[in-house]
């Protein structure tokens, strides 16, 4: 699952190389959403700092 954003961006690079800009942007946006979702799943412990 952690590799999904990389493969999403790889597919996006494929779209860039073949001239499909809109599809490339869509794949980038999806990859970033997956990345943020994975960030949320991995950040579970509280920080020991005072703000």
């Amino acid at each position, binding site marked *: 699952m952690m590799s999904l954003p990389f493969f999403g961006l790889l597919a996006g690079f494929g779209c860039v190389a073949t001239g499909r800009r809109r599809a490339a942007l869509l794949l980038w946006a999806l990859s970033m959403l997956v990345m943020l979702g994975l960030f949320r799943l*991995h950040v579970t412990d509280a920080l020991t700092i005072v703000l």
Partner: protein
Amino acid sequence: MSPSASRSLNAVGLLAVSLVLIAAFLDQFVLGELPCPLCLLQRVGFVGAAFGLALNVAFGPRPSHYAVTILSACFGGAVSVRQVLGHIVPGTGTYGSAILGLHFYTWALIIFGVIVLGCAALLFFERQFTGPEAGPSRATAFGSAMLALAAFLALANGVSTVLECGGGLCPDNPVSYQLLSDPRLPGR
């Protein structure tokens, strides 16, 4: 700045971001330090930043392409900030080795900041968006090569992550490549 000069500059930026990803790979394979989950997400941020630069190289400079790079750097930077804060209190340990006194996640935060500042600086040159060559045209050989390099690094990171984490989430402190050391796999 002319559109073609902007494209060349973006190709150089693409090379610079690719070198960051190559440095991370060298640390992984030469020093044997497996990237943690947050480290992997920071790499995604770098590939995303490279993606915006690649859009500029391939389709010509547009503000939306710079936005792709800036947003990716912000997302990657947010992950870096979280990891820095996790280790900022003395005695809470660190992850990985340090280069020139700073750990990889701290360097990543600095580089993400440089990427954002660099894009903001380039956005001041408005003639790159309106010049006669601002429309779509073929990327230069150097630009195409940098685009291929960035795509290869996205692939290499994807494959490496599958080997390290399998199909699920990565452990917080990975010690081996799950897919290479799982005894339940056939033939082992």
